[in-house]
């Protein structure tokens, strides 16, 4: 939990505006869902494992509510129950929302953070996967993150390998992989092709990794995943690439609802992903309406840290009035505000706080002060005079 200063909020709002503009230009329209969701809804969508990571509360009727930990499940619920039954597909949805996780205190991880993201619901084609990855790249570009890399993998590759194992070990193996505990696999699985393939996962990254993965893909599902991934990357390349895009077959996302292409972006320094997403074709059916879907969420806090683009809080002019000039001062302030400037009005002798310039108003005079310079002006010209000073103060 942390407070945000004027400058931090300005930088965040600036980033939000840029991202919403990019989303809008690609046809994604903003929606909103409640901050609170029923625990059952989230567990139904994201699996029981999510329960440990939630902030929970109990309402007056004894229902367990949670602060939403992400937006994909709430939007899947929304789309499956409200949008898809009513209208034609596909839906292109966008959001900016505060999300909450039950992190350990002192772990250095935030419990409340902001995500901006999109979901493309009702289109199962590879062109849709490509569109979403290209849009993610465009967002990293718009956010001015230099040196970001988007890693792309496919959940079907891993699923295909696990399918060759008896269910008694496939399930614990999946748990180990979700915890990224590769070192424990050899204690669980017998020596063989499946173990070799799983142990190789973290190394299957880079341009030649699709070729290297091919001989390890012993099932149709794994081979199909590699073909699909190659096709998606080819389609993404048509967009031109404002940021680097890499294959990473070891990419395992935190939520178990992912079914196909998955991806994450990392910056040159940040340890947490800047964004993450992928295809989740089975999720909407859990809420009663079968539909393919894909999307991603950008973490605004890590992006702001990586981008370090300063936000511009608007400069404020302090308008000080003499005892006999109150009405005149209020009139002048209204003109400046109409022209889009930020003005605070206060009597002479009262502290103004942080301000870019001072305007002194008496019954007879109107003077704009900037540092030690003074510019006499009139009520009619005050807008131009203040504008000139604010621009000069850079």
């Amino acid at each position, binding site marked *: 939990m942390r407070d945000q200063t004027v400058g931090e909020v300005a930088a965040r709002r600036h980033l939000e505006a840029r991202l919403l503009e990019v989303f809008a230009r690609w046809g994604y329209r903003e929606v909103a869902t409640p901050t609170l969701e029923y625990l059952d809804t989230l567990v139904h969508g994201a699996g029981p494992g999510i329960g440990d990571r939630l902030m929970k509360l109990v309402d007056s009727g004894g229902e367990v509510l949670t602060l939403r930990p992400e937006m994909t499940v709430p939007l899947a619920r929304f789309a499956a129950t409200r949008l898809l039954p009513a209208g034609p597909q596909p839906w292109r949805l966008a959001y900016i929302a505060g999300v909450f996780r039950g992190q350990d205190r002192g772990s250095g991880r935030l419990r409340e953070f902001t995500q901006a993201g999109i979901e493309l619901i009702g289109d199962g084609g590879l062109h849709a996967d490509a569109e979403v990855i290209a849009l993610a790249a465009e967002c990293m570009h718009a956010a001015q993150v230099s040196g970001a890399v988007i890693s792309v993998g496919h959940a079907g590759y891993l699923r295909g390998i696990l399918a060759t194992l008896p269910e008694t070990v496939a399930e614990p193996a999946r748990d180990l992989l979700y915890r*990224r505990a*590769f*070192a424990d696999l050899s204690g669980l699985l017998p020596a063989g092709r499946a173990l070799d393939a799983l142990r190789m996962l*973290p190394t299957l990254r880079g341009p030649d990794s699709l070729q290297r993965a091919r001989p390890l893909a012993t099932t149709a599902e794994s081979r199909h995943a590699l073909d699909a991934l190659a096709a998606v990357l080819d389609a993404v390349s048509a967009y031109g690439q404002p940021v680097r895009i890499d294959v990473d077959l070891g990419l395992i996302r935190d939520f178990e609802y992912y079914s196909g292409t998955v991806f994450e972006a990392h910056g040159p320094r940040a340890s*947490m992903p800047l964004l993450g997403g992928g295809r989740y074709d089975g999720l909407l059916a859990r809420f009663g309406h079968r539909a393919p879907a894909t999307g991603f969420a950008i973490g605004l806090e890590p992006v702001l840290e990586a981008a370090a683009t300063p936000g511009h809080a608007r400069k404020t002019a302090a308008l000080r009035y003499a005892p006999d000039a109150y009405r005149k001062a209020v009139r002048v302030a209204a003109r400046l505000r109409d022209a889009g400037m930020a003005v605070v009005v206060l009597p002479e002798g009262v502290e103004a706080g942080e301000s870019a310039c001072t305007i002194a108003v008496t019954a007879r005079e109107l003077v704009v002060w900037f540092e030690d310079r003074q510019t006499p002006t009139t009520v009619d010209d005050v807008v131009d005079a203040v504008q000139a000073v604010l621009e000069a103060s850079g």
Partner: protein
Amino acid sequence: MNSLSIAIPTGRLLEDATALLRQMGLPMDRFDEDRRLLVALPGSVRVLKAKPTDLLTYVEQGAADIGITGRDMVLEQRRDVYELLDLGFGVCRAVLAFPEERASELWQPGRALRIATKYPRLTMRYFEQQARTVEVIVLYGSVELAPLVGLADGIVDLVMTGQTLKENHLREVAEIAQSSARLVVNRGSLSRSARVAEFVADLEAYLARQERGVHA
């Protein structure tokens, strides 16, 4: 060139961890014996010494790309890092133990127990799996003392030989986890740094050669 930072833990794993890095060609000098916390080595490599309980924080947050830590810490802290290799040293077990003369009486189903440990989450998870009730008392050292003075009924702690348990008249009733030293890697480092991937591959190849050597 990319830099590479490696965190090694103070305490029982320090000597073996330093020796392993030396085997990997890093001029570690006398780093395990002196008091420096951070050394810069040629080739933009930094090695830092961290408390065992803090090591995963350094790696998870990206202050170190790579770390060496016990599996006990990985299981206890459940941090968001890659656990890639079993390094084979620092082998030990986390066990539940009670005072010898009362062990069978205490370890009865349905009995609520007070357990002293450095591993609260590991302990709670184990008791949950066993569907038993537990009250955990977190201590930071010499856990064996707690049952001797009535602070707790029993302990969950690491044992290597069992000697400490015996000396304090404690008897193991269950094994909770097996541990050995692990190589952990920051999530982002693995994606963005070819150097990290290279180091991991070299280390894996070295470990494979060692294993073949042992079996030969």
